[in-house]
């Protein structure tokens, strides 16, 4: 129906963003008026959602674009968080460096660098880690690569869990199981003077989640922007080519190792930034947050949304992180209060997500919003199955 109306193409393409962007950006202003149902995402949930959207879009560059299965993405999240922990807390108490940090005395012990500077630093360090694990492992293909990344995703949390006495020297890098806490808050220390509506310190605002949510959205916007630019670039084409056929790609002049390493590094970059931001929001870098579960959850977000499609992945990440953070519990409570049952639905979380993925694989393997490439691929597979069915029948 809409197709028949005389609306130019650009306008038709703009309709959805014009509706969705304001709804998302202005969420803190109107969410209280949506009612008191516990199903309505709180702002805190919304902040978590922005973090997971960033990470899923980052992971999508590796898995969706370049076709490299990565089961250890949580490592980059951990690295990002610990960068915040190291350079914006009292962890290294023998130093006293304060640079642009908010909420700390100028002579405070420990290293205190402005979070705004730490975000790119954390991203760069995660990207460097991506390169370091990438170089030796990217010679592997498919399942073998996935296994090594799985290992890497386990190694980093183990290192941070046991990093309070590095190599028996007594050097405390990660503060062990307790993690590094508290991490300095965020705030517009300098801009506040020029533009007073920007808060000096998020923690001192009436609702601190509002500003974290805005910064989270900014990170999402940057991540999505970069992801799309890369997809449409020379590098993005090379990623798709190597996903399709490594041998042909190499024969056409695509340097496999280099291009794969870039995929890893760019994916890790955004994981690091998101991890840093989340560490600051939670006020600490704690080993228990970096579990294999996060890696699989992120992968599930990519698959659910539609591998290779940025918008699909954003949707998948938003849905799953909402369910993970608040939705499942809220649904469980609603069921319990209405039916008098006593089910702790959050206990079945992993099972439910597993079930969701199985159902997706059965009924919509290309994801909620598939990329056109994936769709074409799955259409062919489907056709082949149907033809095979005819032959067999």
């Amino acid at each position, binding site marked *: 129906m809409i197709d028949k109306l005389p609306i130019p193409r650009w306008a038709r393409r703009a309709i959805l963003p014009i509706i969705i962007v304001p709804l998302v950006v202005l969420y803190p202003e109107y969410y209280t008026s949506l009612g008191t149902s516990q199903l309505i995402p709180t702002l805190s949930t919304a902040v978590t959602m922005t973090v997971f959207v960033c990470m899923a879009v980052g992971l999508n560059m590796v898995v969706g674009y370049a076709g490299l299965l990565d089961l250890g993405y949580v490592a980059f999240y951990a690295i990002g968080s610990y960068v915040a922990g190291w350079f914006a807390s009292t962890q290294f108490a023998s130093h006293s460096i304060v640079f642009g940090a908010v909420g700390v005395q100028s002579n405070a012990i420990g290293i205190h660098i402005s979070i705004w500077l730490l975000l790119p630093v954390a991203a760069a360090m995660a990207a460097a880690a991506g390169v370091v694990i990438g170089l030796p492992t990217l010679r592997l293909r498919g399942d073998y690569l996935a296994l090594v990344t799985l290992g890497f995703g386990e190694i980093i949390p183990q290192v941070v869990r046991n990093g309070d006495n590095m190599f028996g020297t007594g050097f405390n890098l990660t503060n062990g199981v307790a993690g590094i806490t508290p991490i300095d808050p965020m705030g517009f220390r300098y801009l506040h003077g020029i533009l007073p509506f920007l808060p000096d310190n998020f923690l001192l605002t009436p609702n601190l989640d509002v500003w974290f949510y805005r910064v989270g959205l900014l990170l999402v916007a940057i991540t999505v*922007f*970069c992801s799309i*630019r*890369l997809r449409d*670039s*020379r*590098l*993005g*084409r*090379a990623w*798709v*080519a190597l996903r*399709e*056929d490594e*041998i*042909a*790609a*190499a*024969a*056409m*002049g*695509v*340097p*496999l190792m280099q291009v794969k390493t*870039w995929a890893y590094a*760019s994916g890790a970059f955004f994981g690091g930034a998101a991890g840093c931001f989340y560490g600051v929001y939670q006020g600490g870098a704690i080993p228990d947050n970096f579990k294999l579960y996060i890696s699989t959850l992120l992968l599930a977000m990519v698959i659910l949304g539609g591998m290779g499609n940025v918008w699909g992945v954003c949707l998948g990440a938003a849905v799953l992180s909402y369910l993970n953070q608040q939705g499942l519990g809220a649904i469980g409570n609603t069921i319990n209060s209405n039916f008098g049952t006593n089910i702790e639905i959050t206990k079945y979380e992993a099972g439910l997500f597993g079930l969701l993925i199985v159902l997706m694989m059965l009924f919509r393997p290309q994801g909620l919003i598939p990329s056109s*490439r*994936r769709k*074409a*691929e799955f259409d*062919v597979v489907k056709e082949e199955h149907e033809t095979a069915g005819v032959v067999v029948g």
Partner: protein
Amino acid sequence: MSTEAAEAPAPKAGLSGTAILETRAARKEFGGLVACSDIDFVVPERSIVSLIGPNGAGKTTFFNMLTGAYKPTAGEILFAGRDVGGLPPHRITKLGVGRTFQNIRLFQTMTSVENVLVGMHCRLKGGLIRSILRTPGVRREERDALVRARELLRYCGLSERIDDEYSMNLSYGDQRRLEVARALGSEPTLLLLDEPTAGMNPQESADFTRFVSQLRDERGLTILLIEHDMKVVMGVSERITVLDHGEKIAEGSPAEIQANDRVIEAYLGSGAAGGTGAGSGATA
């Protein structure tokens, strides 16, 4: 019945230009199996040379050594005077060797234009950061690349309609042509075609044969092809090299090859070579 008369004749005068490709005792073993046994081989610049031989003769293995997909066990491979044996494929491509595949290996869920753009990868510069910022330089480069990709598609006889079509949806003949267009994207000086007319009907083969000559004449390319269709081979090549069981058994002009006893024997089996004269044998 003597089979020793396979002395390779000296290169003819018209073809004795500088060699763009030369292999010296190139050898490839897989475990104990010798797939290519000490092959000496010369491709003069701007010539069209064919590599023929029965199935399993080692032709594709030889190709894979030339393009870097396999590392030679021993021997040298000189491209434009430089030893490229064992270099990774992308380096060899960048030096100017393009190729197509026996069983078409296009990037299926990329459009025709995108396939050619991937072919251009090593001639473009746009890096990660500059691509994100989309600097004027990158913008210009991408625009020019797109124009050139479309030109190449037209040159290879593909219509505008298929520009934005996924390559998996193209007809078989168009896929073959797209493979050539993609290979041309890397601006090769030497183009390796692995059984390019396999699966084509006689008309399509004839068209393709003309196209190969045209590539040489108009673009100054040197062309080395593996081919089974003797009509194509005899029609287009200036020189033919015959492999059998991983060894070079003959080399020469089409007429010489057709008269060569060892070639006839390799194709038709021993005993067949006896009474054949020039022009009759290996045209099957």
